[in-house]
């Protein structure tokens, strides 16, 4: 993982507050922030607005490579190669889109985190934005 950038790390207890903070950050033009959640959450995912994961292409291509001219074995290999390619796709895209930022162990338990990498001159407005959205804690992470 590349060196951790400095920025603002905010911790939220409420999902709607975190989603609101994400929307406000996007409105302000921030794009490279990271949201940490203990479970996948539709509201956060919608607010972040990612496109569908390209992992599905890995599944399709992996599955197609399993088609050999014996029906039963082709069926099994389609599933085997499809599943294996899905895992490779998951690993590859998770690695490719990895985000180096400050982290708190509570984000794997019961808190939602947002890390916004930003230069020192932008700290104040970002901290204010996150606090205003309902962050429980906001801190500078070097």
């Amino acid at each position, binding site marked *: 993982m590349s060196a951790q950038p400095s920025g603002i790390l905010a911790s939220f207890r409420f*999902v709607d507050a975190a989603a609101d903070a994400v929307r406000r950050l996007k409105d302000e033009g921030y794009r490279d922030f990271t949201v940490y959640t203990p479970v996948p959450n539709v509201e956060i995912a919608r607010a972040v607005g990612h496109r569908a994961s390209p992992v599905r292409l890995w599944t399709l291509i992996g599955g197609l490579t399993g088609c050999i001219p014996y029906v039963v074995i082709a069926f099994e290999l389609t599933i085997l190669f499809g599943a*294996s390619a899905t895992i490779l796709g998951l690993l590859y895209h998770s690695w490719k889109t990895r985000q180096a930022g400050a982290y708190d162990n509570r984000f794997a338990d019961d808190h939602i985190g947002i890390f916004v990498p930003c230069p020192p001159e932008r700290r104040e407005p970002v901290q204010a934005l996150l606090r205003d959205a309902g962050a429980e804690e906001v801190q500078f992470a070097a």
Partner: protein
Amino acid sequence: MATIVRQDQITRPTYHEITRDIAATLGSPSRTYYVLLGIVVAVFAVGVGALLYQVRFGLGVAGYTPPVMWGVYITTFVFWVGIAHSGTLISAILYLFRSAWRTAVYRTAEAMTVFAVMTAGLFPVIHVGRLWYAYWLFPYPNQRQLWVNFKSPLLWDVFAVSTYFTVSTLFLIVGLVPDIAALRSTATGWRKKLYEITSLGWRGTDQQWRHYTRAYLYLAALATPLVLSVHSVVSWDFAMSIVPGWHATIFAPYFVAGAIYSGVAMVVTLLVPLRKVFKVERYITVEHFENLSKLLLLTGMIVAYAYAVEYFIAWYSGNPFEQQSFWNRAFGDYWWATWTMILCNGALPLFLFFRKVRRSIPALFVLSLFVNLGMWFERFVIIVVSLSHEYEPYAFGHYTPTWVEWSILAGSFGWFFMWFLLFAKNFPTVSITEVKEIIPLPRKERART
């Protein structure tokens, strides 16, 4: 006026309580745990001893007597492959149906699947005798230009079972990653190191969840047809032959239903002591057992229907070989095995029509043991009894398993439970992430009201 409070409002845990309670199951093992582990390792050692004896003196120490050249080992292979099936049913199929109750029990079922396939995979190798030539089962380039027969159901089995093992293992590992990350911060010593490595750098970022949720969905979608295909393929080991009692088109659905039936029974067998020993009664509730028992009842009735259809078709076909084969099952030398199978799989599960039985955990535990017993005998009846009475009366035979076979069968239970106990003490048997998922994240607007 009294305030009415719903039961789920009282018992619904918070996210932090879920992490804490499930992490507590990985604490220092109790004496009961060590006693159980000691017993299963001892039983496993008995099986290993018997296997080494067989390796030393050859397959003659097994009870094979022509024409019965498939006995306890193939019976046990089919039994364990069957046990493996409900894991994927609960983890993948119920996931696609968005069935919320599966979240607390699916990890146990998934782990059971992986260990059951590991156990099943041993038996074809033990059965062929020369363990060191097991790799001959796979097609690989070799100087002797030997090539496997792609039209043989036995080779289909190799592909089906190895695919099933790989996909089930991947599915289990992928599901474990966010949970291990949740445990990483509280673990200490060697466990901390283990979790740091096996959590694969998981932080629950928006990008990670984006890829993870898609990958998990596709794995579930791939595992669903796989679970239906694997036991169909196992059934074709028999149905593609012309042995009376085997050559039937009903075999694939009959085997799949039986597999899920026995697998759900094994899930109940594992969950009952697990929830008690690990004190997770709050997460694995009577409702879970009732749902599992409904699955047991449904699949048990499909299995009982298949038994009836087999006898009906044998009579209706007018084929004397089929008729004598089924007559022999019920009233021949192995009548006791057939009636054990019918009693355990067809009759006893009818008690599940009573809600009281479905919600009685001790009753379900006893019933699950009977179903496991009955399903082993079902495979014994199909394999051994059919082979013992084929076409020519002068070629009829009688097979009696030897102590070596019984010991290896017992050893397989030791091997299976040993892996399960080791898993249960080192990794969460209840999914932290998925149990949290069914509880909505707290909302600011709700907190205000």
